[in-house]
């Protein structure tokens, strides 16, 4: 297990090295700094400042880019997190139903829903959703993270927690206000995510249902739901998690597009605004922040996979 950890970290460091190279190149290309004598020493000084968390200062508001980026990206993560919870609550059961009863009415209905969810362009749905409160006559905020009347100091960067920290001033109002701002954007993202999760779950469940040990479970005289509960779910979960891991960057990419429509102050909006104002330093910073997050989380997910699926543990010794 320890060896596995070391090996993963070693692989991670190579990937991270490539990413810093990319970021370095991008920064020099966009900002057009002169690389006069020694590219190496330039790179190392760049690396040095990155490790210290110094990505330079924004030309727009003279704030350190790294901090602004982290705060913005944590807002994106909040959005993804909520969408994810909605998607799992809706998508998993639907995917399981579809996978268990393949090729009948239920399956076709669920797969049609999933296909529609995939085919709807997210930014367009987001626009429709911004009109929705107006059309239906409900009051839901459609722009920003939180009403500007609340002044919330940045402590952790996660607005959900920060707004809870100011309860003595606003009670729970700030927190609830932030939640209502999250509803529409996360629903839009959840629409896409749900269809992905339905697709993945259905595929995984069908694969497991075809396998021999499910046949054997039938001969044991177990009921259908006993089989699903005891044998199917545990074996179907690892491939689903694995696939979601591969899709992390797509999910974040969609989240960024949605933010721009809702003017939700996340990484997407930050990038969009900065690029429009000619602040290209944010590109390499965003690259390192987002990719770094995806790298670390994929390693964590790998670990969870090894922990929950014993057959993975075997391959871990085999492919060394």
């Amino acid at each position: 297990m320890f060896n596995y950890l070391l090996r993963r970290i070693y692989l991670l460091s190579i990937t991270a090295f490539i990413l810093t190279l990319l970021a370095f190149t991008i920064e020099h290309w966009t900002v057009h700094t002169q690389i006069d004598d020694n590219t190496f020493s330039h790179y190392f000084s760049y690396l040095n400042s990155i490790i210290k968390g110094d990505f330079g200062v924004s030309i727009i508001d003279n704030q350190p880019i790294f901090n602004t980026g982290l705060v913005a990206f944590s807002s994106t993560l909040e959005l993804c997190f909520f969408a994810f919870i909605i998607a799992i609550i809706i998508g998993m059961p639907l995917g399981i139903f579809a996978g268990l009863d393949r090729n009948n009415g239920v399956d076709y209905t669920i797969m049609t829903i999933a296909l529609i969810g995939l085919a709807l362009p997210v930014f367009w749905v987001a626009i429709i959703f911004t009109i929705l409160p107006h059309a239906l006559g409900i009051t839901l905020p459609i722009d920003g993270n939180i009403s500007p009347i609340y002044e919330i100091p940045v402590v952790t960067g996660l607005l959900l927690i920060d707004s809870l920290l100011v309860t003595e001033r606003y009670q729970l109002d700030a927190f609830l206000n932030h939640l209502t701002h999250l509803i529409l954007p996360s629903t839009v993202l959840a629409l896409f995510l749900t269809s992905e999760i339905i697709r993945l779950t259905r595929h995984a469940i069908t694969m497991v249902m075809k396998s021999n040990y499910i046949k054997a479970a039938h001969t044991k005289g177990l009921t259908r739901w006993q089989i699903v509960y005891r044998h199917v779910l545990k074996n179907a979960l690892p491939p689903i998690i694995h696939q979601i891991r591969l899709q992390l960057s797509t999910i974040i990419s969609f989240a960024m597009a949605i933010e721009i429509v809702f003017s939700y102050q996340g990484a997407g909006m930050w990038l969009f605004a900065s690029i429009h104002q000619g602040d290209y330093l944010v590109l390499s910073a965003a690259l390192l922040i987002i990719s770094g997050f995806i790298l670390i989380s994929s390693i964590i997910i790998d670990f969870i996979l090894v922990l929950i699926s014993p057959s993975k543990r075997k391959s871990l010794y085999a492919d060394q």
Partner: protein
Amino acid sequence: MALLDIRNLSIDIITAQGKIRVIDKANLNIIDGSIHGLVGESGSGKSLIAKAILGLHNENWIVTADRMFLGNIDLSKLSSRARRKIMGTEIAIIFQNPRSYLDPSKKIFDQIREVLPKKSHHKRFFSKVVPKLRASEQQIIKELLHKVGVQNDQAVVQSYPYELSEGICQKVMIAMAIANNPRLLIADEPTTSMEAVTQAQIFRLLYKLNQLHNMTILLLSNNFGSISNLSDYISLIYCGQIVESGSYKQIVNSPMHPYTQAMIKTIIEFDDGVDHKGQLYTLPGSIPPANQLPIGCRLGPRCPKAQRTCVSNPEAVNYKGHIIRCHFPQLDDKKDANTPHNK
């Protein structure tokens, strides 16, 4: 007395090219307390019959039978709930490639525990909390594993299937199959791709179960030689038709169907002295695919004794419990001198 009585079992599979009949009017009569061997080449439909008996078939199969009784239970009219009840307690099955039939993400202990005689819900819940109940389960599992010849039961119950050899996995499968003392055990080529020693162990185990616990066993195999000594009754199946069926004596000593004779000739007997570089006996040709069957007798094109009548399908004939499906059976009085078992 017949434990399993099947009359005119037919299985059709629906494919893109239309319906294909893969089992054609098979009759199977298994006597209580016997070992019944079902022998046929791979692809001849042995496993299909086993799956039809268990009701494990897919949706695109059409299974029809005039009679399909296990004791006094009509298998063809069972609801899925009633079928679940008899699974494990009346019929159990073991498969080839046993490892793939064990759940890869669960320890052997949990998998065996699943098949132990059903308990009420609250007991199952308490067994997780109260160590005493768990201990009694452990005792039962230990006895089961010892019964099938697994010595180091402690290590085995704590392992995952991928950590065990195929032989041990098959023994675990057998342990799970016999946990509820079923009346019929179906063994679907239980020893394919195993070492000879393990094969012998498994066969000995099955024989012991039959002798000591009076368990009826339907033994499916593609190797006539390996199971013929074990079986009390033997049926041979060729291309979805049962061509000959009878007791061990009848089949081995006086085979009537040319296919059976060919099968018996394929058993190499070294004491008879096989000629150096002599050809081993086989039928010419190969088994036809299920959608390209010849008309009439299905063995027709490969049969050494085929005549003009063989283009029509022969009916099954019963000679004192010895059933054959052939126009020109080799009757006792005019035995072929070449048959090695005609003493």
